[in-house]
């Protein structure tokens, strides 16, 4: 019976991953970074990393989960949780509905239970197709619940961040998700929980200034833009052009804010190594 559900979950994940990940065969894909065209086959084979310049294009949450999890281990958490409109912001419910239909997501984060090479963990993956993966109450609540779930079940927590910042339409409630998620991570870590924060392109604003910066281990994808203020705001503020590579993952590594940069093809290997290193002797 368990076997049956595992297979079903696996098919569901594969279906959702295909829906957001795959490029129709025969089409050519232009890289948004270097402009070079590649065949759909090459693009998909490299997990949507440009075969010419190595640009790591943003990918959907289910697609990413399908790349890193052991087959059949994906079990979504809080999959029915829906966003709300706490300010009663005009037009927001309609925007949410339209984005939900377009992406097949309820909001900008998918949380799940899963394994990497047999090591169980709680996962959260943000998806920038959903209103720039901005953090509203639904994102804050799901990340918080994921941390609490990991704490209750003594599991490591792995979050893939991507975000344009706060969800403006949810105003102050959006801001408060920074406090809520940071507090939940802090609690989890005080109890000995391992939190691995993986930053992907782009991670900015309130997500950078809360849970995404609090990892015991800090990792990022190559070329990811990571910062508090966006580059345009900074350029307007200081009245000068920012240097090439500013706020990119490589720049953060140089300035001491990351442990390592992990290419997309190596997430499974690196995460599995880290999970194994924390399995014995650690307090989780």
């Amino acid at each position, binding site marked *: 019976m368990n076997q049956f559900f595992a297979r079903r979950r696996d098919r569901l994940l594969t279906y959702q991953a295909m829906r957001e990940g795959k490029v129709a065969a025969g089409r050519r894909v232009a890289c948004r970074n270097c402009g070079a065209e590649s065949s759909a086959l090459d693009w998909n084979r490299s997990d949507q990393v440009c075969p010419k310049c190595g640009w790591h294009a943003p990918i959907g949450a289910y697609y990413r989960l399908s790349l890193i999890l052991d087959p059949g281990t994906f079990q979504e958490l809080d999959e029915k949780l829906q966003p709300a409109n706490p300010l009663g912001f005009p037009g927001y419910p309609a925007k949410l509905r339209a984005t939900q239909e377009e992406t097949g997501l309820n909001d900008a984060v998918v949380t799940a239970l899963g394994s990497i090479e047999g090591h169980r963990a709680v996962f959260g993956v943000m998806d920038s197709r959903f209103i720039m993966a901005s953090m509203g109450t639904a994102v804050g609540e799901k990340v918080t619940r994921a941390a609490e779930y990991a704490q209750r079940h003594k599991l490591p927590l792995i979050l893939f961040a991507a975000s344009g910042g706060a969800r403006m339409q949810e105003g*102050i409630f959006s801001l408060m998700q*920074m406090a809520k998620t940071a507090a939940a991570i802090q609690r989890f870590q005080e109890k000995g929980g391992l939190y691995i924060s993986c930053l992907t392109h782009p991670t900015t604003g309130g997500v950078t200034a809360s849970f995404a910066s609090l990892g015991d281990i800090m990792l990022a994808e190559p070329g990811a833009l990571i910062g508090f203020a966006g580059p345009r705001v900074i350029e307007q503020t200081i009245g000068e052009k920012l240097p090439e590579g500013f706020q990119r993952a490589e720049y953060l590594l140089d300035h001491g804010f990351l442990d390592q940069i992990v290419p997309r093809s190596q997430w499974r290997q690196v995460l599995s190594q880290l999970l194994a290193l924390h399995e014995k002797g650690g307090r989780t």
Partner: protein
Amino acid sequence: MSAYTPEEKVKLARNPERPGTADFIQALFTDFFEQRGDRLCREDASILGGIARFHGRPVTIVGHRKGKNLEENLTCNFGMPGPEGYRKAQRLMKQAEKFGRPIITFIDTPGAYPGKEAEERGQGEAIARCLALMSSLTVPTIAVVTGEGSSGGALALGVANRVLMLEHAVYSVLSPEGFASILWKDSSRSGEACAVMKLTAQDLRRGGIVQGVLREPEGGAHTDWEATFRTVDAALRKELAALDKLSPRVLVQQRYQMFRAMGRDLPAAGEEEA
């Protein structure tokens, strides 16, 4: 209560004649000893902090400082801290916890500084650490929003057991200008933004974001500093007395639950959207 529109309140909250952190320290506390520097890189004057006595008992104070004239404004970067300011705040708060001192913060900032060096030295990380630290402190903490509280730069000093607001202060996810610029690509529509953001003390009290609204004198806090000081003093005494009854464990628990509850009640699929 008052007949001011949200837009008028934003103007009142930004009035340079309003008492700021330095003024509250001078009026409400004795024996103030300023502590400077983050012990890592530099001193950031946009965060003012130190030890003082509040009705005889030692407390730690941390607040945003905008400065009172152009020269001071420049030194204080108009109240926009960099990571050094937030790391100084963390240093002072950890020390307060070590010595069992309650912490009182004053919030008044247009936001954390969006500058090149600030990013280079980890503005996001510094704010994140402030939030995590404040959420776990075992001493009583009270935050007072005295002017404008914008974005994560304000919240970094706001994860307290009690969050109080002056009647005409505002507290929001971003300045109304920034909000309009992001949502409508037009910062001149900030007036419109004020109307939909629900950034007034009264709105936030209803939303459960702040626990107390402190009455300002007729015309705003800047018209009668003494009256404002009396109100804030009385509120701090009352809240501190209540928090004194709680054990360190309960203080942490109460604070966690308070922020945990913000945006918790979300509909499951099938339910009607709010």
